Each structure stands twice: as structure tokens, then as C-alpha cells.
């Protein structure tokens, strides 16, 4: 295998891999065309060349292989960037709380916590801030917890007129399209 081709493959593997990359695994991916020692040499070269100049990623040895990491001095702007990109994003936890509120409204925080098996106070707060859920009075039980409902904004996003128009989740997954046809 040509050295150039191998270098580009190693680079692609490093950038798409989730864990440490081992030379033997890359060698296997070339059907053995590139022996392990050669892959190891290319990995060393790449590590050295990425170290020169100011690059956005570096190679480090970890877990018996190599992996890409970002240099520590970029931590702050990267954090800000991912925060900005995250503004239009919803965490898995937030989506779960939203799904519970949507399908069981009105519902209290203790009920949400019970169903999720995890404290959901902070996440619910985020959804309140993003105006996807709202307060809807208090439940007449001990402690009088707040009740939550989805908002107008929530309906707008899903193109619904009323919360009651939310389809039954089972129906939607099982027979949505068939019923539509």
C-alpha cells in the first residue's frame, strides 16, 4: 500500500473512531496490505506532524492505542462553541421530561421524578426557561406540588392546535402510516 494512501486512511480512522485506535486494527482494515509496523510508523509520523505548528487536534497514546484530543488551551472557546450550538439543542433528559409532560399532562415534578427514576428538577427548569412547558396550578395533595403542562410554543413546534391533538404514542409508532393511508 502506498504511504500516502495509508496516511490518509489512518487519518480518517483517527477522526471517525470513538475510542483509541490500534495499529493492528488498522492493518486488518487494509486486508494486511499495510503491516502493523508500517501503520505504527505512520501513526508516529502523524503524531509528530500534528504536534508541530498550532493544530486543533493532537494525537495521544491511550488505552493501548492512539486517539485524537483537542489541546487544553482550546477548552474555553470549544466549551462556548458547543454551548452556542447547544442552544438549539435538547438533551436526552430534557426530551424525556418533555415526553412525559406532553403525554400525561397535567403532571407534577414528583410524578416525573418517579417515572424517570431520576431527579428532573434542573431539566424541568430548562424546559420552563425555553417555554416548552409551563406551570398549570398546584395539585391538591400533600405538599401541593406544581402541575406542569406543555405550552403554545410546544404546540406550534409540532404543528398541533391543541394538546389533545397529540396522537397516542402507541398508535403513532405502530400504525401511524397505515391509519394515514
Amino acid at each position, binding site marked *: 500500500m502506498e504511504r500516502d494512501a495509508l496516511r490518509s486512511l489512518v487519518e*480518517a480512522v483517527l*477522526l*471517525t473512531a*470513538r475510542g483509541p485506535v490500534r495499529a493492528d486494527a488498522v492493518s486488518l482494515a487494509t486486508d494486511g496490505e499495510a503491516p502493523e509496523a508500517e501503520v505504527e510508523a505512520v501513526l508516529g509520523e502523524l503524531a509528530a506532524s500534528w504536534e508541530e505548528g498550532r493544530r486543533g*487536534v493532537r494525537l495521544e497514546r491511550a488505552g493501548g492505542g492512539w486517539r*485524537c*484530543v*483537542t489541546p*487544553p488551551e482550546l*477548552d474555553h472557546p*470549544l*466549551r462556548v462553541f*458547543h454551548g452556542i450550538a*447547544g442552544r*438549539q*439543542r*435538547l*438533551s*436526552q433528559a430534557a*426530551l*424525556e421530561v*418533555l*415526553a*412525559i409532560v*406532553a*403525554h400525561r399532562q397535567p403532571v407534577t415534578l414528583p410524578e416525573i421524578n418517579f*417515572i*424517570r*427514576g431520576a431527579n428532573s428538577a434542573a431539566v424541568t427548569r430548562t424546559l420552563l426557561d425555553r417555554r416548552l412547558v409551563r406551570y398549570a396550578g398546584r395539585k391538591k395533595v400533600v405538599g401541593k406540588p406544581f402541575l406542569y403542562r406543555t405550552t403554545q410554543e410546544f404546540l406550534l*413546534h*409540532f404543528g398541533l392546535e391543541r394538546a389533545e391533538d*397529540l*396522537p397516542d*404514542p*402507541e398508535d*403513532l*409508532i405502530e400504525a*401511524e402510516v397505515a391509519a394515514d393511508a
Partner: protein
Amino acid sequence: MDTTPDLGEVTALGPPVELPFFNGPLDLLLHLIRKNQVSIYDIPIVAICDQYHEHIRTMEELDLEVAGEFLWMAAWLLQLKSRMLLPRVEEEGEDPREELVERLLAYRAVRELAAILHDKDLVRSCIWPAGVVPALDDAQTELDWEEVDLRLLAETYLAVMTRFAAANPPPLEVLPLRYTVQDKMREIYQRIVDEELVPLLRYLNRRPDPEEAVALVVATLELVRLGAVSAEQRLPFAEIYLRRGSRQVDLDRFAGETAGVSDGA
């Protein structure tokens, strides 16, 4: 056993017919138009209609399922054919084929676009996005809010409820006993006293509730143990006949005597 294949059946089917697959009646029509090298704007309806029906017939002969949409188009074509054969009454009237042409054109455009997507898909399926995990500790999977639709919401809800059900299995339901052994001992003993000979299995078969049947069997065994009832079976699996045993038993004393039995049961 003779395993010679039945050749007669195979030859009866005749040679296999190569039948291209069509993504619907419009797809088939476009194929016929291309095959006949005719203009989409001036479709010879009579010929195309006949070929279309011929195709449907072949599908049926091959036992292929002919979807309703193919039959619907077949009916439409027949109707167009008869209108084309009739002398034109309406002068300068609209061409009966107009709607069909419009639909064929729209569908053909869709197919063109689908072909472009197909070529793109071929190449694009071969690329991988880079995904270096940033060294930020709180990096977690997040979803683009724009992409959150009703389906994802429903899927998430069902996943949460499934997880909840797994973590909180429903408690075993313990139903209150509806039949007591004492009552059943009294019932069956009274029956034996009244009828002298009681067929147990037939008696049990008239009790569709398994709980009651179990209580009856336990009651019978208890009566046999006390010597109040004797049981007799001539053959395995044959009827079991119950009659009075050697000991006289006071029905009213059962409550006390069987207290130990129900404790142990």
C-alpha cells in the same frame, strides 16, 4: 417413500416469465409508452390499455399480488378507451387523456429527481463524518430541537415508560380465597349421603373454575384421610367413585377437625 419429483406439475407452469417490477401503475404506463416509442402527449390509448391489461393478466397468472392501485388504473384506462372509441361529440372539447398526461408528467419528474437522489446516495453513503469527542466532561448527546418531531417524542415516551415498568414490576396480586376446604367437605359429604355413589371426575368437570376444583379435590382427600369417605377407581384414568366410609362423621364438627388441614394447605 418415493421421492421422485412430480415433473408434471413443473411443466404445467411453463417456462418462467421475466416480469419486471413496477413501482405502481404510473411506472408501468411510462414503461409501456417508452417501449412503444410513442409520445406521452399523444398516447394511443387503445393499444396501451390492451398492453396494460395484458400485463395485469400475466401478473395474476403468475400468482403475483396485484395491488389495488394497478386495478384502479386498469379501470380508468378502460374508461378512457371507450371514450376514445366513441365519436367526439364535443367539438373542440377537452382531450379525455389530459388528466392522465398531467399525472404521468408529474410522476416522470419525480422519477427524474429520484434518479438524481439515487446517484447522490451511491456516493454519499460512502462518506463518514468526523466525530472527535471533545475533552469536555459535560458533553452529552443532544438533539437538534428542529429535528424533534412527534415520532421522536412518542418514541421517547414509550422508552421511558418501558424503563419505568422494568424498574417497577407490578406486585403479585393475591386474590382472597373464594372457596374453603371446609365448605367443600360439607358439600361433597352431603352429596354422598344423599346419592350414596358420587362420580368425582364428572362432578369436577362441571366446575369450570379451577380454584373450586382444587378446593374440591383437597376436600375429598381430607374426607378420605378421616375415613369418612372411601374412593375407588377400577382402572387408571377411569372414573373415581366416592361412597361413605367406615367412620361416621358429624358434618358440624368439620370446622374444628379440619382447622389443622387448612393451616397445612
